[in-house]
């Protein structure tokens, strides 16, 4: 297999800045031709209010103070940037893992939910709704609702409730009502539909905490800004560690794309940094069971945003497949559609099997059990033609506790050191 992309950080000619802000959303809510706010009128007032106020609120001193304090004392930030020695040896390069898995609740999702709940409070909202796929965003939302004493309803596909049962239990313990989405493929897409319909029916008191860089403007930009703390920290930590704040590669998995957007954010204008998103190929790009939207999608409108999406010729949205519930989404954030269209980032895909292999590899080499989502990013290290002088940052977006059932099902039989034989 040959992969066409630039190897970052080598040719001096590309060591330059992009036009500042070139990859940011414009004043109309678009990234190039992607983005916008394609919503029914019932949601107009809420989305318009958010659009008019989000930047002022986020930039206010009291918001910054409260957000920063909670990220530090409650989430546990900054999350470590860990030099993965044995993984680096294996790939003959320098690999750093951005340890979002060590955040409170076990994934990067909490960065966004803390930000949005503070915003919702300032908008005077009383009730919070959210969609969730793997359950990480649902748990992160239920957590901040408990923290702030707000009512919380989480929509989750019925299929996902089964495959991520531990997270359903956590949400319930945290006081959230978990509502199964029974329509369509009963996964993330349908949970998102149900959350949007709830918002249509409760426009006055409810804020919808979207969990990724998807949905109508200003959500993609707002969520990317909350998650941008990931790349802000990477820069500082790399500077201290290597003497340069710029890596050669940043690798992150992409479902809707929020951990990738946060990992890329402060590197967007530094075109020497090769940005690599990894989608879920499911059983393979041509298998019909895949969630690789950028590889296979065409421009269209989903969940309020114009972006790439997997759809039939007639414009019906195709139900995706991935072993990882968090990547099982037929669209992608408009920022990624744009970074792909402009060539600023490249997007690869990893199959279910590659992700499982990568998860087992990381576990045995570094003693870290990654989330299945994050394992997709790790799975592409083997295809990046890495060199010893490269500095590669992989966003380890979440931990694998929630995926134990899946992992145990695929644990190679002859590779299982557990035994019921008495030790002698």
């Amino acid at each position, binding site marked *: 297999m040959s992969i066409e992309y630039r190897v970052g950080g080598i040719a001096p000619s590309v060591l330059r800045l992009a036009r500042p802000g070139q990859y940011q959303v414009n004043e*109309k809510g678009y990234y190039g031709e992607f983005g*916008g*706010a*394609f*919503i*029914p*009128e*019932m949601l*107009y*007032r*809420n989305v318009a209010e958010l659009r008019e106020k989000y930047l002022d609120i986020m930039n206010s001193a009291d918001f910054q103070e409260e957000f920063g304090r909670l990220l530090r004392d409650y989430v546990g930030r900054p999350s470590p940037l860990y030099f993965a020695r044995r993984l680096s040896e294996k790939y003959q390069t320098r690999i750093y893992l951005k340890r979002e898995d060590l955040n409170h609740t076990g994934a990067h999702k909490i960065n966004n939910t803390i930000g949005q709940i503070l915003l919702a409070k300032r908008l005077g909202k009383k009730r919070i709704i959210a969609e969730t796929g793997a359950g990480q965003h649902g748990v992160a939302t239920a957590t901040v609702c408990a923290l702030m004493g707000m009512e919380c309803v989480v929509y989750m596909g019925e299929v996902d409730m089964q495959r991520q049962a531990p997270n359903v239990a956590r949400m319930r313990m945290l006081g959230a009502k978990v509502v199964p989405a029974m*329509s*369509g493929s009963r996964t993330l*897409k349908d949970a998102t*539909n149900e959350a*949007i*319909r709830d918002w*249509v*029916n*409760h*426009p*006055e008191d409810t804020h919808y905490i979207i969990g990724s860089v998807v949905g109508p403007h200003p959500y993609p930009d707002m969520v990317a800004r909350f998650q941008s703390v990931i790349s802000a920290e990477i820069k500082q930590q790399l500077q201290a560690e290597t003497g340069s704040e710029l890596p050669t590669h940043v690798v992150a998995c992409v479902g809707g794309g929020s951990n990738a957007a946060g990992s890329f954010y402060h590197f967007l204008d530094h075109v020497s940094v090769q940005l690599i998103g990894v989608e879920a190929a499911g059983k393979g790009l041509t298998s019909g069971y895949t969630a690789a939207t950028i590889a296979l999608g*065409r*421009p*269209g*409108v*989903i*969940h*309020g945003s114009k972006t790439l*999406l997997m*759809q039939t*010729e*007639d*414009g*019906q*949205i195709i139900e995706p497949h991935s072993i990882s519930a968090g990547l099982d989404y037929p669209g992608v954030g408009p920022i990624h559609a744009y970074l792909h269209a402009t060539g600023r980032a490249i997007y690869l895909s990893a199959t279910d099997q590659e992700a499982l292999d990568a998860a087992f590899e990381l576990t045995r080499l570094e003693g870290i059990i990654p989330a299945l989502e994050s394992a997709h990013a790790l799975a592409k290290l083997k295809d990046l033609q890495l060199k010893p002088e490269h500095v590669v940052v992989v966003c380890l977006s979440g931990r694998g506790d929630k995926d134990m059932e899946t992992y145990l099902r695929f644990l190679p039989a002859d590779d299982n050191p557990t035994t019921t034989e008495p030790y002698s």
Partner: protein
Amino acid sequence: MNRIDSLFAQKKEKILTIYFTAGFPRLQDTRRILLALQQAGADMVEIGIPFSDPLADGPVIQQSSKQALDNGMSLRLLFEQLHDIRREVHLPLILFGYLNVVLQFGLERFFEKCTETGIDGLILPDLPLDEFRQDLEPLCKSTGIHFSFLITPETSDARIRQLDEASSGFLYVVSSSSTTGKKKDLSSLQPYFQRIEAMQLKNPFLVGFGIHDHESFLQACRHSRGAVIGSAYIRVLQQAADIEQATKDFVQQILSDNPVHAAS
């Protein structure tokens, strides 16, 4: 003259518009349902283009859309089914659908087909005003096909004026902030309808969402020119042994003070 304009010129009150999902309950029912509605006394029909992810719709229309798609419905097939509909059906016809399906079909081709078929109006609830102005308004103007925006109790007066200005034919007033098919008491909403009536808008308006029987129809018509019924009719189609008879009974029951009880 656009049939919607003729209708509003002729009929000053209680205009009954009925929605159904194309391809439901069976793939080839489109023509039969249109004829039944015309026969039964509906004034205008909204034909729903089924979509896999209908965000503004409640469970009833979600289900009819899903079944229509499972039956094999598509926009291409709908235009085929409608190609000679104007020989038999003279009611104003509106296509109601979500933007993505229309975008994939191709905007210009879509307007061509609408013109060929004799479609009078369009409702695309997830199309933003700016995108309408840029991409659809010129096509509406050149073809004479009307476009109706939705307004809700949350819509500000200033925005109502903008949406009225951009709309043609009529304005679609959503009875309350909800998805389709939620039965509700419309008497508490009279101040909202009155407020819109008092704004003396450019377009007449129809009330939709939650209208399901004779009483709610009358409530909706008190300050408007008429009402749109969707989910309640889909429920009837779901159970209908005989589409013609069921449609006739349903329309009569909506229009009459003495509801006809179906024999079944």
